[in-house]
């Protein structure tokens, strides 16, 4: 694509182009997962790739996560560059042993002799009435594990370019693609050909309160910031992008500007990524805080199927606005 003018693209298409690029750029690279070939992917991300690259590189697997993720770890150890797709992160728990005990640990156990350049893509999140077993946000759990990098692209640009950076990384990298974002459209600047997987980004500047989020929390926080603006509250929106290792420098710098922080996370509160960020602010930025840290998270229930209940369980724009307003305005 040599067109120099910014174009618009869906998040799904950005993911697909990223995979196609990777397959074209490196013959060691292949895609493996449930329904990625003939069916074109549960969320249609890999649609058309089987026809283009053939069954050697677009591999449909049995419904056996521990098996094909383990095969991915082995392939990576053997020098390939596998892109393993797990249909939803809920199913990744079946492969947790491979991810934690092998992928994340072998480089350490081997004294650095073996790298595991494995990329695992997973769909995450709720909002499409897929019920509890297909709707959870488990990226915060994976962010607990040393040896992994955990990415959460929230923009078309990150969806388009994070994969290449992940493949270039010698460590196992998990990419969490939010199911609600697949249909989202966004601008893609052809001039940007790469992104880093090290830093959080300030997506909107503001002086009154920091909204710290990632993934599908980003559009919600941007909408909340817009609403807060109308009330005279300038919210800064931080897109974490990388959940492990956390770029707390960007977060604390923002809090040092705003002195107030709302963390928006579709995970549950208890023992979560949002808890980790709040704890680190308490440890490292307490004297910047002019108000308690607030969290807007998913209610601590299995995500409901019924639409109105699912909506009620998830962080919504109004919840974020209310939390931020409560910190900035006197009660």
């Amino acid at each position, binding site marked *: 694509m040599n067109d120099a003018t910014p174009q618009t693209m869906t998040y799904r298409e950005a993911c697909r182009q990223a995979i196609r690029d990777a397959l074209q750029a490196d013959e060691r690279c292949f895609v493996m997962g449930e329904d990625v070939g003939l069916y074109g992917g549960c969320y249609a991300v890999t649609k058309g790739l089987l026809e283009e690259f053939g069954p050697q590189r677009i591999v449909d697997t049995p419904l056996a996560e521990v098996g094909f993720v383990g095969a991915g770890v082995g392939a990576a150890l053997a020098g390939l560059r596998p892109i393993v797709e797990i249909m939803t992160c809920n199913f990744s728990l079946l492969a947790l042993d491979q991810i934690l005990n092998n992928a994340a640990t072998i480089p350490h156990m081997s004294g650095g002799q073996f790298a595991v350049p494995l990329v695992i893509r997973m769909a995450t999140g709720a909002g499409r009435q897929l019920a509890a077993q297909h709707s959870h946000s488990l990226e915060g759990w994976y962010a607990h594990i040393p040896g992994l990098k955990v990415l959460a692209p929230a923009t078309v640009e990150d969806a388009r370019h994070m994969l290449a950076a992940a493949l270039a990384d010698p460590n196992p990298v998990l990419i969490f693609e939010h199911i609600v974002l697949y249909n989202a459209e966004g601008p893609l600047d052809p001039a940007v050909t790469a992104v880093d997987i090290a830093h959080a980004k300030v997506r909107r500047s503001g002086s009154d309160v920091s909204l710290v989020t990632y993934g599908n929390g980003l559009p919600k926080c941007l909408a909340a910031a817009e609403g807060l603006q109308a009330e005279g509250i300038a919210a800064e929106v931080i897109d974490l992008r990388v959940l492990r290792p956390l770029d707390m420098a960007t977060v604390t710098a923002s809090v040092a500007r705003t*002195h107030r922080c709302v963390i928006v996370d579709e995970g549950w509160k208890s023992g979560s990524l949002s808890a980790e960020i709040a704890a680190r602010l308490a440890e490292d930025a*307490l*004297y*910047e*805080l*002019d*108000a308690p840290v607030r969290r807007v998270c998913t209610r601590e229930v299995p995500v409901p199927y019924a639409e109105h209940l699912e909506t009620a369980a998830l962080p919504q724009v109004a919840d974020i606005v209310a939390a931020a307003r*409560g*910190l900035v*305005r*006197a*009660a």
Partner: protein
Amino acid sequence: MADFLMPALGADMETGRVVQWLVAPGATVKSGDVVAVVETHKGAIDVEIFLDGVIHDLVPLNTPLPVGAVLARVALPDAAPVTATPALAQTPTLAPALPQQRLTATAAAAPAPAPARPRISPAARQRARQLGIDPVTLQGHGADAVVTLADVERAAAARSAAMPASAVPPARGGGFDPAQMRQAIAAAMARSKREIPHYYLGQSIDFAAASDWITRWNADRPPEQRLLPAVLLLKATARALQAVPPLNGFWENGSFRAGDGIHIGWAIALRGGGLVAPAIHHADRLSLSELMEHLRDLVQRARSGGLRSSELTDPTITVTSLGDRGADSVYGVIYPPQVAIVGFGRVQPQPWVVDGQIVVRPVLQASLAADHRASDGHLGGQLLAAIDKALQAPETL
């Protein structure tokens, strides 16, 4: 062990630097000793310590430090409570409420209910410490009435409305910049006029008795023992304030706080412009001769340098007298957070009615500008009347 902290020398001071240590590490200091010369952007001030002990860990010279920064450590005698921070006493707004030490014997009885801890955000606490503000005294405007950063900044802005501090000649390390002092005065006075609802009262005072008394007093005394009329004005004002305490103190955070004594800030014009109003402590307790001595010393030090930190932070009211070359009357602008300023014009021969006859008398125009939040005109009138009454009996002063 206690810390000797950078004092807030005037309400608009944020940082200062030690330009001279007058003690060596390991020296024994006692409360009231001048131990350092601290320069602010308005000049160099002799800073007293209010600790007894052995001083050490002196900070290096010429390092800019915020108000409240540790300048030195003082090893206290064993008997002294370790938690005491008497250095803070020189800046009343700094003094934190020390936790009550509860004796173990009484703790066995029913423990007293703990007082509610003031809710102050961590950022507000930090900033307050930097600025030398006691956040406990502030009114919180955050959610649930928490004292926030904004409350501290507001308090700091209110304080920076305060007094232009002192001038210092270049010989003392200098730093006095007339333009900067002008700025400080501008800020303080603009703040005063913006925030303080002044009311003004004036009174013509027959100064004949005072004038005659001074003439008699001075007649057979050598020059160094003679008195200026100013000491009568000071003493009369101090005496009057004893009768009207609500004009002697501070308006802080929405309420009046009485001064811990009558410490009159005497406005002194500086050569080259600017002014300073250092305190004459406990003016009501000093004899006229002592007052004269203090006044001479204060004017001399204000103009040549060497004002003490406590003199800049303690005044509970200001008195301004423009003197013989001044105007007939002066209506002052209150120096926040004080609540009143008394002004004296020059003494002029005026027609005056005595027993139905017009006679010529030396007449003094006294004025009061006072903060209507803290007092009303009725009370202000009492102060001027009391000053008048005192000046009619100078021998009692």
